[in-house]
C-alpha cells in the first residue's frame, strides 16, 4: 500500500473516531468501545474497497454492508457522513427524538444503511439473503457483514453460517470483530465462543485472521476473500475495544457508556494528536 493511500485511510479512520465520540457525547449514551474497534475497517471499506455511491445510495448494483453488531451504529453513521451520504452536522443529533439517526441502524430513513439491525444475531442472516439475491439476479456485488465476537454467542449466527456454506455464497464475507469484551466482561469468561477459526472452517468458510487495525492486512484479507470461489469467506479481525482512546482501550465499561465533557475533550485531543 502506498504512503498516500495509507495516509488517506488513517485520516478517514480518525474522522470516523471523532464522529463516534461526537455522537455518543452529544447523545450521552451509545456504544463507543465497539465502534472504535471497527473504525479502521469501516474507513477501508467505505473509502477504498466498497462500490457505493452517496449520490445514489439505493443503486441496485452497489456492494452491501450489514452492521450485524448494530449497536456500533455511531461508527457506521460517522463513516457514511464522512463519505457524503448525509450531512455531518447530523452526527450531533444521534439518538435524539427528532433525528433520523436512531440508536441502531434504520435502513428506512438513513441514507447508506443497507439493513436495519440492532437485535444481535440477525444481521448476518440478512446479509446471506442479500448475497443470495445477487446470485439470483446475476449481479456481481459483494455483501459484507460485521459481526461481534460476543454476538457470535447468538445461535442464529451459526444457522446463517450453515446457510452461507450450503448455498456457496462466495460473494459474502463475514467479518468477525474480535475485540474480546462484551457487557458482562471478557468474551472468553462470559461463555467462550472461541476458537472462531476452527469453528468457521468446520462450517465451510475460507478463514483468515488479521490485525483489524492494520490497513495492509485488511486490504490483503478482503482481496483474498474476493478471489475465493464456491465458499463464503470469514475474516477474524483481532481488534482493541475502544481503539484510539487510551482510557477507553480494553475497558468493558466503554462498551455502552458515553464520554462526559471532560472525557470527550481528552479523547478528541488524543485522536487529533495522532499522526496521519
Amino acid at each position, binding site marked *: 500500500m502506498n504512503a498516500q493511500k495509507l495516509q488517506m485511510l488513517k485520516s478517514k479512520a480518525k474522522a470516523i473516531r471523532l464522529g463516534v465520540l461526537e455522537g455518543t457525547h452529544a447523545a450521552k449514551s451509545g456504544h463507543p468501545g465497539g465502534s472504535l474497534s471497527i473504525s479502521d475497517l469501516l474507513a477501508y471499506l467505505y473509502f477504498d474497497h466498497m462500490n457505493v455511491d452517496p449520490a445514489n445510495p439505493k443503486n*441496485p448494483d452497489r456492494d*452491501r454492508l*450489514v452492521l450485524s453488531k448494530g449497536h456500533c451504529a455511531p461508527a457506521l453513521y460517522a463513516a457514511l457522513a464522512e463519505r457524503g451520504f448525509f450531512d455531518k452536522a447530523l452526527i450531533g443529533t444521534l439518538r435524539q427524538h427528532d433525528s433520523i439517526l436512531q440508536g441502531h441502524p*434504520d*435502513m*428506512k430513513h438513513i441514507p447508506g444503511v*443497507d*439493513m*436495519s439491525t*440492532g*437485535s444481535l*444475531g*440477525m*444481521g448476518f*442472516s*440478512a*446479509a*446471506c*439473503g*442479500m*448475497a*443470495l*439475491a*445477487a446470485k*439470483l*439476479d446475476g449481479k456481481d456485488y459483494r455483501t459484507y457483514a460485521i459481526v461481534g465476537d460476543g454476538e457470535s454467542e447468538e*445461535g*442464529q449466527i451459526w*444457522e*446463517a453460517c*450453515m*446457510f452461507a456454506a*450450503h*448455498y456457496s455464497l462466495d460473494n459474502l464475507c463475514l467479518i468477525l470483530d474480535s475485540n474480546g469484551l462484551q457487557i458482562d466482561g471478557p468474551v472468553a469468561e462470559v461463555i467462550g465462543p472461541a476458537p472462531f477459526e476452527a469453528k468457521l472452517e468446520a462450517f465451510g468458510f475460507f478463514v483468515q485472521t488479521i490485525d483489524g487495525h492494520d490497513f495492509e492486512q485488511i486490504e490483503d484479507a478482503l482481496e483474498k476473500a474476493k478471489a475465493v470461489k464456491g465458499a463464503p469467506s470469514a475474516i477474524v479481525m483481532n481488534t482493541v475495544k475502544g481503539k484510539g482512546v487510551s482510557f477507553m482501550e480494553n475497558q468493558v465499561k466503554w462498551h455502552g457508556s458515553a464520554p462526559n465533557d471532560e472525557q470527550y475533550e481528552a479523547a478528541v485531543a488524543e485522536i487529533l494528536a495522532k499522526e496521519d
Partner: protein
Amino acid sequence: MYKIGDKVATRDAYGKALVEFAEQYDFVVLDADLAEATKTVTFKKAYPDRFFDCGIAEGNMMCVAAGLAAAGKTAFASSFAMFAAGRAYEQARNAVGYPHLNVKIGATHAGLAVGEDGATHQCLEDLALMRTIPGMTVINPADAVEARLAVKCAIETDGPFYIRFSRNPLPVVNDEENYTFELGKGVTLRDGKDVTLVATGYMVSMALEAAEMLAGEGIDARVINIHTLKPLDSELICKAAAETGAIVTAEEHNVIGGLGSAVAQAVCQGCPVPVLNVGTQDVFGRSGKVPPLLEMYGLTPANIAENAKKAIALKK
C-alpha cells in the same frame, strides 16, 4: 376452480397459488424443512431454482427472507405457525416489520386442528403476535378461494404479510366465479338483524352452520367473514353492531389478542354493544382427533349459537 361445498385444505391452495403466480411475478420461496407439510413442495418441484430450504432454523430463514427483500426480491417464508410466528417472532418484528420489507410469511398448521401433535404444535397465539407488529398485514383465509387470492394480493401489495393456512380440508364458502378479494374488507356471507356472528378462517363455515341453527329457533343471525384481521374492517363491524345490537366472534385461536380482541376494540370505540368471544379461553391445547378437540374447546356451531343467544340477552 374451487366449488362451494368442496373441502380443500388452504395449505394446498397456498402451494398451488405459488405455482400459479410464479410466471407472472418474481418471487422466491423459503421453507424450514417442512415443505411437504406446508405445501411449498408444490412450488419446489415446479421452480427448484427459486426455492431455498433453510433447514430447521426458522430465525435464520426469516432474516434471510428479509435480506432478499432488502435486495429487491419478494420472499415467501413458510413454516408451521408455531415456528413462523412464535419461534421467529422477534425476527419477524425487527428484521421484517421494522424495515417494512416484502416478506410474506406463509404459516400452516395453526390452531387446534393440528390434532394429535398436541399443545407444543398447536399455535393459538400467532394472530395476536402478528397483529402487534406495526405495518404487518394479517390474513386468515376462510377457504381455498380466499387463500389463493390472498397469496396474489400479498405478492402485489408492498410490505410484510402474515397469512395463516389450514392443515385440514375446509369447506369452500365463497363462489369463486363472483368473488373479489378486497384486502381489509370483511365479507357479509349472510344477512340478519338479531345478532352478528363475526368469524375468521376455520370458524367461518361453522358460523354459517350456527346461523342455520339459530334460524331454526327464529333468530336471524348475520354472518361476517373477516379474512383480514389487520387492517380490520371496523366500518363493516360497527355497522353490524349498530344494526344487530350484539356480536359473537369465532376463531380457532386464543380469545386474547386475536379476532375477538380486535372486534371488541373496534366495537368499543365505534358502537358499543355486547361482544362475546368463541375461541380457546386462555388455555393450551392437547393431543387428540380434531373433532373431539374442537368439541372440548367449544369451537363448534352449537357453541357459537349458544353464545349468540347469550349476546342477544345482554342487549340493553
